[in-house]
């Protein structure tokens, strides 16, 4: 898109060039020190690099499309996602049922997008909770430092060495597989990587000149942490998030396979795929659509995440 626009702009420019377009520059020496171009913030720069990376943009487009469909998808079809119709079970995709129907005659199109909601909620909610805990814990750990920071770090290392999926499985076995337990299960150990990244960044940043300057101007610790330190760690945090979301979505799918997936009238992609694989050869569409969606989500997150990492790390763009 962007590329195309630039080309046409350049072409127009070339065609339209006449002497009329040239005029004498008036040099005002008072402004010699002023910067002509509006200063590009670091974020604009990242966005610029990102927008020129077609894989990342494709990923972003797919993601946006999936999220939009998760929101409006179930209303695009007249069929309700939970309405049984025993007279039309396991129908192949058709004009009426775009993705076919399942074993109780429910419309797979509506269900797939309801499933998208559940899966995306699991993914985003888990990532978000991890983000909050991780940033707070990591921020304190890094900023306070010293003995307390050390102890906090040790605690997080112990928690980190506990295998996450095992604890998740145990937790879901104990407390019934509901949306909340599944999300919480992925948050038990998920925040630790985040907190370490934040800690590392903050330790690196907190002795930089601008922080010292701020401190000498009497800024409070909290202000320094939230105003100066955290915003500067955003990059790695966002990259981390693009990994945490699909990890939780996939984790939920694994739990579904173990029979511990979300139990609601609207199934998640994981539970739908798991149901579908059982009749894979007879009614392939029942596995195919949710499987394609989950794969697309993974693909999109990976493409976008990679692009973002490249964009945030200009070193690689030589």
């Amino acid at each position, binding site marked *: 898109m962007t590329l195309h626009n630039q080309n046409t702009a350049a072409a127009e420019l070339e065609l339209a060039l006449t002497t009329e377009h040239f005029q004498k520059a008036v040099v005002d020496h008072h402004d010699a020190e002023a910067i002509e171009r509006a200063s590009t913030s670091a974020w604009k720069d990242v966005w610029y690099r990102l927008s020129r990376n077609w894989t990342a943009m494709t990923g972003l487009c797919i993601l946006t499309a999936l999220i939009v469909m998760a929101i409006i998808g179930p209303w695009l079809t007249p069929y309700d996602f939970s309405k*049984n119709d*025993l*007279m039309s*079970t*396991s129908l192949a995709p058709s004009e009426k049922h775009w993705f076919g129907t399942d*074993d*109780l005659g429910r419309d797979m199109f509506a269900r797939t997008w309801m499933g998208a909601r559940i899966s995306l909620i699991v993914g985003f909610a888990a990532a978000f909770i991890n983000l909050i805990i991780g940033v707070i814990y990591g921020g304190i750990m890094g900023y306070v430092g010293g003995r307390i920071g050390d102890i906090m770090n040790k605690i997080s290392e112990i928690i980190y060495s506990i295998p996450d999926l095992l604890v998740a499985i145990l937790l879901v076995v104990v407390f*019934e597989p509901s949306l909340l337990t599944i999300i919480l299960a992925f948050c038990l150990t998920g925040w630790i990587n985040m907190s370490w990244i934040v800690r590392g960044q903050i330790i690196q940043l907190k002795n930089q000149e601008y922080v010292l300057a701020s401190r000498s101007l009497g800024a409070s610790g909290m202000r320094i942490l939230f105003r100066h330190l955290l915003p500067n760690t955003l990059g790695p945090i966002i990259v981390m998030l693009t990994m945490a979301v699909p990890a939780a979505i996939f984790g939920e799918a694994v739990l579904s396979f173990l*029979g511990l997936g979300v*139990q609601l*009238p609207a199934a998640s992609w994981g539970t739908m795929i798991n*149901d579908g*694989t*059982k*009749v*894979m050869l*007879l*009614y392939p569409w029942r596995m195919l659509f949710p499987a394609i969606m989950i794969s697309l989500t993974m693909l999109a997150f990976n493409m976008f995440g990679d692009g973002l990492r490249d964009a945030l790390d200009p070193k690689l763009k030589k």
Partner: protein
Amino acid sequence: MKRRTMFVLLVLMLSVSTLLSACTSSTTPEANKPTETQKPNNETKTDPPTETAAKQEFRFNIGTEPPSLDPGLAQDVTSSTILSATFEGLTSTDQNSKVIPGVAEKWDISPDGKKYTFTLRQNAKWSNGDPVTAHDFEYAWKRVLDPNLPQTSPYNYQLYYIKNGEAYFTKKITDPNQIGVKATGDYTLEVELENPTPYFLDLTAFATYFPIHKSAKDNPAWANEANTLISNGPLKVSSWAHSSQLELVPNEHYHKRDEIKLTKVTAVMIEDTNAILNMYETNALDYIGPPTNGGIPSEQIPILQQTKKDEIAIKPLAASYYYLFNNKQKPFDNKKVRKALALAINRQLITEKITLSGQQPAFGIVPPGINIVNDEYRNQVDGNYFKEDIAEAQKLLAEGLKESGLDKVPAFTLIYNTNDLHKKVAQAVADMWKQNLNIDVKLQNIEWTVFLDQRSALDYSVARAGWNPDYNDPMTFLDLYTTGSGNNDIGFSNKKYDDLVKAAKKEVDLVKRRDLLASAEKILIEEEMAILPIYYNATAQLLKPNIKNVYVDPLANFHFARGYVE
């Protein structure tokens, strides 16, 4: 420099291997074991399908590791499938679940129906060649009832029919000689019962009543490995690769050795439905069906009925699937409300569109296949206690609500244990109630143990239930809901019904007994609708056409010991 690189690579490799070997150092010595036991299997698996046809071998799936091959401890279908081929009780059952002689050649029953004298055949042998005697039975039964056995048999109440059996287990008496079982000779066994029990001979064909070899005394784990497992049935376990497969070969000492034609039976333990079908498809399995439930996904059945006409069979099972009402809770304490809910369901639609494996709509609780007075109970007692009728249901509901002083059915929850089929049936039933009676039902799936807890604590409104018979007699269904019964989880209490069941338990005359039971069923369903019958169960099986004489009996037991390959 070159060395450094090598070193790095070495570390890389080492860390991969140490990482794995270090954590298994304790298990390495045994690492070879499963391989050895599995080796023979190697041959079967690689056999081209044409060759197996000539071999007298049979391969089927039991889904999971059998929880116990100790007859005294087993309580599940998987274990009893293997046990009934490797052990033999006093009696045995045939294709129609009728009693035939087993280790006992003949038996005498006293006129009051309380004393049985079994005469054992003298040529019955254990797989190690020892003779099977009446003492082995006495030992086995008393062992199950022993309150000091290191491992308690969860099914030992199956032996409470025997005089003082319960008293001994609950330590009300301490002298094992008072238990009503005695070997009066090597080949004579005398059994005294608490009550006349017309189905006692069915019970003696049941795993808990199987004999046990004396060597079990010194080795509580005798039934855990193939080499210590001594059995007396047509087949014996020759190898047991835990969680992978069991291999059975003929017991050379079996008294009817000539009837056993198979030279090897392999029972694999696979749960994944796709894998099971794929194995059948590629000739790695000869049979799919009970004891695994759900071996064939129900949705595949209509298709298989077209593509594999000669191999698929639908077998009715003597089991009922129904919903429980909490008879103590408003508005389900009103029988008109209960009836309305029962009448408003289209059972045919459920069996034809959801369960799909030959289930039959149920209008009573005792399923076909259960025998009484030497014939099927349902042939003698009409089971249509009510008729589906939406208009009638709406009328009954209105009346019932009025009697309860309500103007509509309060929203309630239908609970079921987590399972695909239960979920589908519940969704369909809820939908029908919504459409026909405009009742809002919430569905909730609950984990098995919690589900049972809630059910027995009457902490529910409507709950799923199913009952598989313990023995082939209507009593196994009809004494469920007597006042004070451990299985009465519906809060139902009806004096007339209790009296009828109690009378039937003492009745010696078989015809009178049948009529007493029929009246009890009539009260339970037609008059009270204490439960909501949905369907009588059935199962689908796939069997390769060249395999003969393997079958599922109405009690869902799978018999294969006398099968052969054509």
